[in-house]
């Protein structure tokens, strides 16, 4: 352990909570879950295909890169990756990924670099047989600005541990597109530390896979930081998509805004959204808001949505949350149809409208268009196909 890691660990006052266990790289401290624990109770553990076992991960993902000027990629040992800082794994999956990845990849944006072209990382799975473990560090130097787009596709059994480090005044748009094949299993923990006056905007778009479970954990290295965490998911029959967010307001005058929206269709489509916010004693003057909305498009789906707020100081600007699970609003459909718009077209409009504010926030224009098209394609699979049959 380097001095930086020790001081990180010591500075934080411990807050007892079943919602977010103590982070550590020590696997012993993260026993194999039974499934009854708060952080595991929504996840179908059997479908993780052995990702909770401590076995070497022999598989890999095909990687394609587009690195604009000012951005470098290098290999590190796992020890070197941990020494760069950031929060240790909160759960067993994260600890296993960090331990079994073999080596780590550092994506480095130089200080004060203004990278206008997106950094693109395409990760493609070529089979589910051999498990893949990944360890990535994304570091954005002070006052630098960058967009990083990570696109997942193909078949895999993948467990990733990603550390995001934003220097003072840095700005990062981090976009994850999880558009896996139907048989993919993907677990990932993304632990981000936001520097003083830095801004992290993260987008997660989860559209495909058998099971996807991501945990994003954010804390702050100083006052004035902002974390905006946006997500969109569209679960089909049998798919389990789980997004867990934890914002640890451990510094004053910090801001967080979490908005996740999902649609579900088809038998046994299951989505889980957990939004945890901790406001520590020192975190005076912070502002936080978290929101999750789910649109249940057919019978037989389940959307779990749990916002949690732990407050240790009342000296804040604001803290709020909203959570909703609903069906198509009959009145909306009636209004549109009363103007001559067919039922199928009306449903398309409503769903497109539901996701529109999130998609419009994406700073990569061709990606926004692609996502709109994909949402429509998803709709065609059940909601619109069912209408044609009826």
């Amino acid at each position, binding site marked *: 352990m380097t001095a930086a890691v020790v001081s990180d660990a010591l500075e934080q006052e411990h807050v007892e909570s079943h919602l977010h266990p103590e982070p550590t790289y020590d696997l012993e401290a993260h026993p194999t879950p039974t499934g009854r624990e708060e952080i595991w109770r929504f996840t179908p553990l059997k479908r993780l295909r052995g990702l909770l076992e401590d076995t070497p991960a022999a598989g890999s993902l095909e990687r394609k890169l587009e690195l604009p000027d000012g951005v470098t990629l290098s290999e590190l040992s796992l020890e070197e990756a941990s020494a760069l800082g950031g929060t240790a794994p909160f759960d067993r999956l994260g600890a296993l990924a960090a331990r079994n990845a073999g080596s780590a990849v550092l994506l480095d944006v130089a200080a004060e670099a203004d990278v206008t072209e997106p950094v693109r990382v395409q990760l493609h799975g070529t089979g589910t047989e051999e498990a893949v473990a990944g360890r990535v560090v994304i570091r954005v130097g002070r006052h630098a600005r960058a967009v990083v787009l990570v696109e997942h596709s193909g078949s895999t059994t993948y467990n990733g541990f990603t550390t995001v480090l934003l220097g003072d005044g840095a700005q990062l748009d981090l976009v994850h597109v999880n558009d896996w094949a139907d048989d993919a299993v993907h677990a990932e923990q993304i632990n981000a530390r936001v520097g003083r006056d830095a801004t992290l905007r993260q987008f997660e778009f989860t559209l495909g896979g058998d099971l996807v479970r991501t945990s994003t954990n954010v804390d702050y290295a100083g006052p004035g930081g902002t974390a905006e965490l946006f997500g969109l998911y569209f679960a089909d029959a049998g798919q389990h998509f789980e997004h867990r967010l934890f914002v640890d307001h451990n510094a004053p005058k910090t801001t967080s805004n979490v908005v996740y929206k999902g649609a579900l269709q088809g038998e046994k489509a299951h989505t889980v959204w957990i939004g945890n916010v901790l406001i520590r004693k020192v975190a005076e003057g912070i502002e936080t808001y978290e929101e999750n909305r789910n649109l249940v498009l057919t019978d037989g789906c389940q959307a779990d949505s749990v916002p949690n707020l732990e407050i240790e100081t009342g000296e804040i600007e604001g803290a709020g949350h909203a959570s909703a699970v609903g069906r198509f*609003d*009959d*009145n*909306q459909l*009636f*209004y*549109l*149809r*009363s*103007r*001559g*718009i*067919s*039922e199928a*077209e*009306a449903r398309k*409009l*409503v769903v*497109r*409208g*539901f*996701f*529109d*504010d999130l998609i419009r926030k994406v700073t990569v224009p061709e990606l926004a268009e692609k996502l709109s098209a994909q949402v429509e394609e998803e709709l065609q699979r059940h909601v619109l196909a069912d209408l044609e049959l009826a």
Partner: protein
Amino acid sequence: MSTLEIKDLQVQVQTEDGPKEILKGVTLTIKDGETHAIMGPNGSGKSTLAYSIAGHPRYEITGGTVTLDGEDVLEMSVDERARAGLFLAMQYPVEVPGVSVANFLRTAKTAIDGEAPKLRTWVKEVNGAMERMNLDASFSQRSVNEGFSGGEKKRHEIAQLDLLDPKVAILDETDSGLDIDALKVVSAGVNRFREREGKGVLLITHYTRILRYIKPDHVHVFVAGKVAESGGPELAEELEANGYERFLEAAV
């Protein structure tokens, strides 16, 4: 020509205590180019009549017929009714988040005409309709009814009436909640529609105020789910002077 014919219409809704009959045999014919006002106290079933004609799924038709130019309206789906030429301006227009007014209007116009409107003339038409209703040009970029004031919602309904150009318009308490300036703008919009060839209007209202700006050919007093009395504009004047009491007593 356009004739909306309602014969002995009976409608019920499901409540916790079982089905409840709301319309108890309504008969009404709106002929080519006529404007009919339906006036009645709260709870008399005026809005039920409007929504039943438009096909809202909450209202169950238990008897009677509705035809538009001889076509069976009750057999049609909600959107088919609109494409056949019916338009309902709603008392409480519904918010559709994320769907812009521009997109909504273009989609509706395309559905009703069966082809997309020509882009250049359409944008002009939309801007013209907005301007006539005192709505800012930026209005088209807002989400349908989301964050609109009460007056903006009603003016937006009448802008749609202008652009979609139905055969028969049903206006469900379009005047309620409007201040005098907005009422004049809305009334002028409805009158412009009436000036077009052969348009029918069914104006449902609680107040006589709007009838100073929109002159009906026929006035019907609606009480307890049916037409209690029909007459000319003078019937509205009587209501203005004496209220609904005479009709309520008769219904008891």
